[in-house]
């Protein structure tokens, strides 16, 4: 029996518009190219590992945005790995619709199999393994549909796009194919290749097979929540069970750098602090520099950020942006106790915040803007 090896990835979202971007158009274009580069890297990993299977668990080609050129590239890449069987389980971002590039299936290379909305099971004798899968055919799928039990031959692998729900979670508000852990426990799956959640995770089910349920996460960061290295999963299935290796494939990492500027009395000091923090990172990455803490009221930070931006630009960092989460160093409790108009202004603002907690941020900003104006006119 040949050993079963696979590369498991998902949520590449090829050609999805770059989000949360504050850089130049040119850099945004380069960033778009990064995702293709990451895909090429995944194919290289497949070749390098000589994997029997490549599982792509959905959200692969961003529906409504993916370009014909990208689809062509993807097909060409798949043609380079004819010895590897590729399984694509379309997700909510790339449903297998009539207006999708997945359609018609026949246009795809012969080693590529795209699952439809019904469970399909394919048995491979040379590996003695059955691959089960299904895909989205629309943007939303609220119902859990159990996989078939009649075709359980050999070892079992499931590829699907959906939301894994723990035993206690309810699927009531789940719009993306809820998969209950308790349901999965009953199946003799060796490995469940999932997609949808961008954060990598590996769960072990409490069943006889000790099923591994894995989200590889997005192989290239799509938002500033997806910081650090991004991976694909290299899996092997032997008689001893499943072994999983996480292989980093990202082209650029997103990094969020928190800078506490409470002790910075001037913009120069803030700049120095940011530079010191950046020193430990690879400059080819993308950075979100978050300024936190209380800054002197005389520093107009929003204006100073432009200056900081120009200074950091000289460091040849691929992409960075500043987020001002700091607050001017007003002692609100002091002002609220004042008898004059400042005190009354602060009290009124605090009163409104209490009455409208959902608008707290709005009132807080207004409060600081008002105080800044009041104090600068003292």
């Amino acid at each position: 029996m040949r050993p079963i090896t696979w590369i498991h990835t998902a949520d590449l979202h090829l050609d999805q518009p770059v989000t949360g971007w504050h850089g130049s158009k040119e850099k945004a274009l380069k960033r778009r190219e990064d995702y293709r580069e990451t895909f090429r890297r995944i194919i290289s990993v497949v070749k390098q590992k000589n994997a029997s299977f490549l599982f792509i668990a959905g959200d692969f080609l961003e529906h409504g945005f993916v370009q014909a050129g990208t689809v062509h590239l993807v097909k060409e890449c798949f043609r380079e790995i004819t010895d590897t069987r590729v399984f694509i389980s379309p997700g909510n971002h790339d449903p297998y619709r009539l207006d999708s590039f997945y359609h018609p299936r026949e246009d795809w290379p012969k080693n590529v199999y795209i699952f439809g909305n019904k469970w399909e099971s394919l048995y491979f004798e040379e590996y003695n393994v059955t691959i089960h899968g299904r895909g989205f055919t629309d943007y939303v799928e609220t119902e859990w549909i159990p996989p078939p039990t009649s075709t359980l031959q050999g070892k079992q692998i499931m590829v699907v796009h959906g939301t894994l729900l723990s035993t206690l979670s309810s699927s009531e508000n789940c719009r993306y194919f809820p998969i209950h852990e308790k349901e999965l426990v009953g199946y003799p799956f060796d490995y469940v290749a999932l997609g949808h959640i961008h954060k990598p995770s590996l769960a072990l089910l409490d069943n006889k097979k000790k099923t591994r349920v894995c989200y590889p996460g997005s192989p290239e960061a799509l938002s500033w929540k997806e910081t650090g290295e991004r991976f694909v999963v290299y899996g092997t299935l032997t008689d001893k069970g499943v072994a999983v290796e996480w292989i980093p494939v990202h082209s650029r990492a997103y990094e969020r750098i928190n800078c506490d500027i409470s002790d910075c009395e001037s913009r120069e000091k803030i700049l120095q602090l940011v530079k010191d923090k950046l020193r430990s990172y690879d400059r080819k990455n993308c950075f979100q520099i978050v300024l936190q803490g209380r800054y002197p009221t005389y520093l107009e930070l929003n204006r100073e950020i432009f200056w900081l931006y120009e200074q950091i630009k000289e460091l040849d960092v691929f992409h960075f942006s500043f987020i001002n989460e700091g607050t001017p160093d007003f002692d609100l409790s002091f002002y609220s106790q004042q008898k004059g108009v400042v005190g009354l202004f602060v009290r009124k603002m605090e009163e409104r915040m209490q009455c409208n907690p959902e608008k707290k941020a709005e009132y807080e900003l207004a409060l600081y803007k008002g105080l800044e104006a009041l104090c600068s006119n003292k």
Partner: protein
Amino acid sequence: MQINRVKFRGFGRWVNKEFQFREGINVIEAPNEAGKSTIIQGIFSLLYGPKKEGVKKQIKADWYQQYLPWMNSDYGGEIEYSVQNHPYRLVRTLLLPHDKAQLNDLAMGLDISDRFSMDAKKDRLFLEEQIGFSHDSMKRIAYLSPRFVDEGKEEHNKQSQVIERIKTALYGQDLDVQPVLKQLEKKINEIGHPKSDTKKLGIATTRCNELEKEVHRLKSDYVVLVEDIQYCSELKKKIEGLVAEREELGRERGRIYRFQQNQKLQEAHLKIQNLRHQYEILDQFNEEEAYRAINKLEEFSRLEKRNLALYDYEGDAVNRHRLEADIADIILFQEQEKTVEIKKREVDQQALLYSGKKTIFINGWLITSLLSLLGMVIAFMWMPSIVVLPALVACFSSYNYYRLLVSGTQCDREVLAKEGEQLARELERVSVLKKAVFDYWSTDSLAVLYAKLNEMRRVQSVEVEDPIELGQNEQKMEQIHQDVKRWITTFLCELPPFDSEQWIREIRLLIHQAKEYREEMYKLKLLKAEINKEAITTNVEERIQHFSLDEIRNIEDAYNRVERELLEKKEEHAKLEGKIEKMCELVSVLPLKETEWEIGRAEVAELERERKAYELAKEVLQEAVLELQENIGPKLIPVASKWLKMVSDNRYDTLLINLHRGVHLNVFVPETGENQPICMLSKGAVDQVIFALRLSLLQFYANHTSLFLPLILDDYFVHFDEVRIQNALRLLDTFAIMGHQVILCTCHKRESSVLDRLGIEYYPIHLR
């Protein structure tokens, strides 16, 4: 509240220096740079500490650096004061970051520091909780100095500064927030409205809207592109199908072609056979022999010419021969003519005879039958028994009449007519031939021809020069004639009368025909070879039977249709591919534009958020100001008016305040009987108004809180004239009697002299 004692361990120039204060008026009289202002700042510093207020971080107050002790590092001191007659001592170390403060209740002899809450900087809020005023607020209410007005500023700013001073004096705090509101308004204007094209928000919104439109356009293009790509894929499949169909039809056409070739082959076979059959003889035709025959005939002609030349009269030999032949022919024609004429005459006579007889017989039989009929009638009338006899005669004669008239003569008549016609034609032919011969010799008599012949013979027999050559030639010619005749009769069925030229033409015609025949044969053989080369199989032979003309037409039509459709589809596919390529290029910017749009939306949202924050701040600030004005203003005005009347020696008795348009102060001027804005008054008058307002504010506060705050005047009366200073000091006395402590700092002796002169009690403090 009253300041009782201040001791500086180190504050500016004052090191280990103690000052005592009493209730009522305290006068610090000293020249400039003596340290009066340092004492005043020291009082506030010891009361409130060394840090900047209003911020959470520990930041040095603005004055901190200026008053660091000159001689030692023990920055700080202690201050004793009483609040509502309860004495306290506040001990402070001002040196940051090791500043400390301790408040002792002197009556109880206890450290009561923990009873006071701490601010964000971990400082105890002693005075804030005891009197309700922060450092800045306390200074704004209890401290008066002419340094409010910055002498270095422009003249036009002074008036507004005066008003600011008065407003501050009136409310003791920042109640007039017009500049703040203006600043907020400015910020709102800077951001602008979404529809203002020149402002930040408007520009961002316009850009965002443009991007939105572009993204939507690109998205619809994208939908079309995907449809086109899918249609292109379908088209490709269709083309593949058509290509397959065309190939199949092509194969059919190939079969048809072979079938047609086969047909051609068969036709060629047939043609070859026909040609062979038709020109079989030409197979043996040898061109060389033909040319040899032509040569011979040419030799014949040459010999003939030679022979003719042997005669004096060129052409006589020929003519003689011809004449002889023609005479023979004429004789023959005449004989034939005679014979034919005789025959014709006989036939004509027979026909005539036959015709005369026939008429007589016909008429005889007709008359006989008529008479018989008449006899039959008569017999019937007279003798019916013999009626049968005439009836029989009538029948017999009628029958004969009919036979002669209709059928009986038909055959003989036709034979005679045909024979007559034949003979007439023959006669005509003979006479034509005869006429031709006569025409040739230009005569119409045989006798003339004989005469000509005799003459020729006579001449020839006399004039032949070399009868041997002539004979030899004639022999040769005869030989040639015989040889050629032998050869040519193989190929010509009807040989024309011998004429060398004619025969040469005939031979050339034969050569030409043979050539054509060979060429045609060659072509047919080539065709055969070509068709054979294409390897017509027995299958084709089998298929041949399946292709009817209809089938061929149908297949050909289908092939043409498929070919046409294929061409159309290919053209459509090529066009579509071109369109797709262009569209791909256009649509490739969609994700980028979406990103740009997102950035644009975020920018608009941020600007809107900022604008909203400024609007909200403005709204709440206006609300706060209005509330304060409505609460304090009306109550304060009567008190302020009273003090103004006193300080102006009953000149101004009414202070008018317009709260709704910010703080606008007017006074009623008795000389003009009009309300004048305060800024229109003289500088001294303005100082009077400010002084009155400040006193009223402290009194107002005391009335409402029972807390009598001290009033600290730092060279305040410097612009006051003698009369006004007297009035002011009288007021200060009244104010002190009410329970307020007054600390008057001056660099002049004027204040103490006036106080002395007016008999007002005061406590002098000496700085030495």
